[in-house]
């Protein structure tokens, strides 16, 4: 037993639905539009899919609804709910199922009309926290407050993350928020939960994504440039935010090293990093926990445009959850952008010569952390 899925599976199709504000479309309709586009990209029909990896809230049994909607009878049905990181987690299970021959064509998909339906992600019951009526943002705000207290991170550091995301979004014609954003303007944003302002919070969008994978030895039969899964690992630290052992250290500090070890790579080898930016503090925490800088140095690391276009590390090149899209859960879009970059199809925001990408998903209140390393054929 190798304990590894390195190079076992490849992404051969990527599809995004129309996204941003898409009135008149249900969760499942948006999902199907993304699936249509991913299948066209991969040169298959939806009926070729025999492995389904999906979670579409607020349904309680979304995997069956998705299969029914698409008219599929998949041999593998997997719908574990890890929050927004679920879709990065599915990369592991899809690669394993493909490698074992349990299925031949795997689909990872998600869709939501969170913006148009005005349905807000409610989160899971938190029985020992409910009397205090916390909103999702409050847990992240407390993580940010503690990070500032321990490490001297500043409001300016948080704002740098929002400004960098916007600068990337300006190079993505499909991103929702493309107006220029200066550091000064970001610092004037309305406070929501100290120290997080409106611009420290991700968007609420409509949108769907779909990823098609197949076994590595079949990837050359597809019309697209394959993007291989080189490493992946999931970790968890808590569900209720008060149970998080250290508000300044996420379980990415464990998932990252495991994924890098499987890939045989280090942070210095990454061409870009897609880090789940539900809030600006996430990007800072994940840069530290994944080893791009030391613990406590995430703030200075992002300063002076260091993760913006032309900076030292390309982070969230689509504009991220902060400026591109965030339809309730965002994990599938991290994978889609990383694959688009590694195929060299990212247009004005293309990272020249990118051969590797780190994809990092976050779920709940910094609860689940899933890291995956993707690479081109040269990296196998």
């Amino acid at each position, binding site marked *: 037993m190798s304990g590894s899925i390195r190079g076992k599976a490849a992404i051969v199709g990527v599809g995004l639905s129309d996204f941003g504000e898409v009135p008149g479309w249900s969760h499942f309709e948006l999902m199907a539009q993304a699936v249509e586009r991913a299948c066209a990209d991969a040169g298959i029909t939806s009926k070729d899919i025999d492995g389904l990896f999906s979670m579409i809230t607020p349904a309680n049994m979304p995997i069956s609804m998705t299969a029914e909607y698409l008219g599929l009878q998949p041999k593998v049905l997997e719908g574990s709910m890890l929050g927004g990181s679920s879709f990065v987690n599915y990369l592991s299970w899809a690669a394993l199922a493909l490698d074992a021959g349990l299925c031949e064509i795997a689909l990872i998909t998600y869709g939501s009309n969170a913006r148009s339906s005005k349905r807000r992600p409610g989160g899971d019951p*938190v*029985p*020992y*926290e409910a*009397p*205090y*009526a*916390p*909103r999702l943002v*409050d847990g992240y*705000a*407390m*993580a940010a*407050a*503690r990070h500032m*207290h321990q490490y001297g991170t500043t409001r300016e550091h948080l704002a740098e993350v929002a400004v960098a995301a916007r600068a990337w979004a300006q190079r993505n014609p499909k991103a929702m928020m493309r107006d220029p954003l200066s550091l000064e303007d970001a610092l004037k944003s*309305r*406070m*929501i*939960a*100290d*120290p*997080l302002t409106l611009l420290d919070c991700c968007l609420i969008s409509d949108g769907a994504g779909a990823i098609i994978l197949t076994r590595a030895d079949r990837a050359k039969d597809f019309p697209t440039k394959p993007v291989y899964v080189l490493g992946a690992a999931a970790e968890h630290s808590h569900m*209720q*935010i*008060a*149970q998080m052992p250290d*508000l300044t250290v996420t379980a990415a500090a464990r998932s990252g090293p495991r994924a890098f070890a499987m890939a045989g790579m280090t942070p210095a080898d990454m061409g870009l990093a897609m880090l789940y930016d539900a809030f600006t503090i996430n990007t800072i925490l994940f840069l530290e926990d994944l080893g791009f800088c030391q613990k406590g140095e995430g703030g200075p690391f992002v300063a002076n445009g260091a993760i913006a276009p032309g900076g030292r590390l390309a982070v969230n090149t689509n504009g991220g959850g902060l400026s591109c899209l965030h339809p309730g859960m965002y994990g599938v879009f991290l994978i889609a952008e990383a694959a688009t970059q590694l195929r060299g199809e990212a247009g004005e925001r293309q990272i020249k010569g990118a051969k590797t990408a780190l994809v990092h998903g976050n779920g709940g209140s910094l609860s689940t952390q899933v890291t995956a390393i993707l690479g081109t054929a040269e990296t196998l």
Partner: protein
Amino acid sequence: MADKPAPAPIAHPGPDYIYQAALAAGTFQIQRCDACASHIFYPRHLCPVCGSAKISWVAASGDGTVYSTTMIRQRPEAGGNKNICIVELAEGPRLMSRIEGVAAEEVTIGMAVSAEIAGSGDEPKFIVFRPRAGGQS
């Protein structure tokens, strides 16, 4: 109007029931693992540190320190700014709570606080904190 029949007493309630019943009777108690001596909150059947099922109840000191805090910004007509925080108990475990008796703007990380039981009428009771005499810990 007919009276509802009184619920049958529960012979062997689980930890959460015991915790809530003690709060309703005016006592804040937490657990302590007999095997590894870790204090535990929230109430568990198995110690989350070592996995032991041998767990005892102990009276909480009620002393704590604000581990992190935020202010939920609200317009005055919506009730004004509100505190929400995580308190680290002197015994070690943390819990979500809020600090009462002081403006939300004045709650800081490191503030020394004391527990009290809140919740009115038939609602489940819960723990809130007030600044502790003696100031910063």
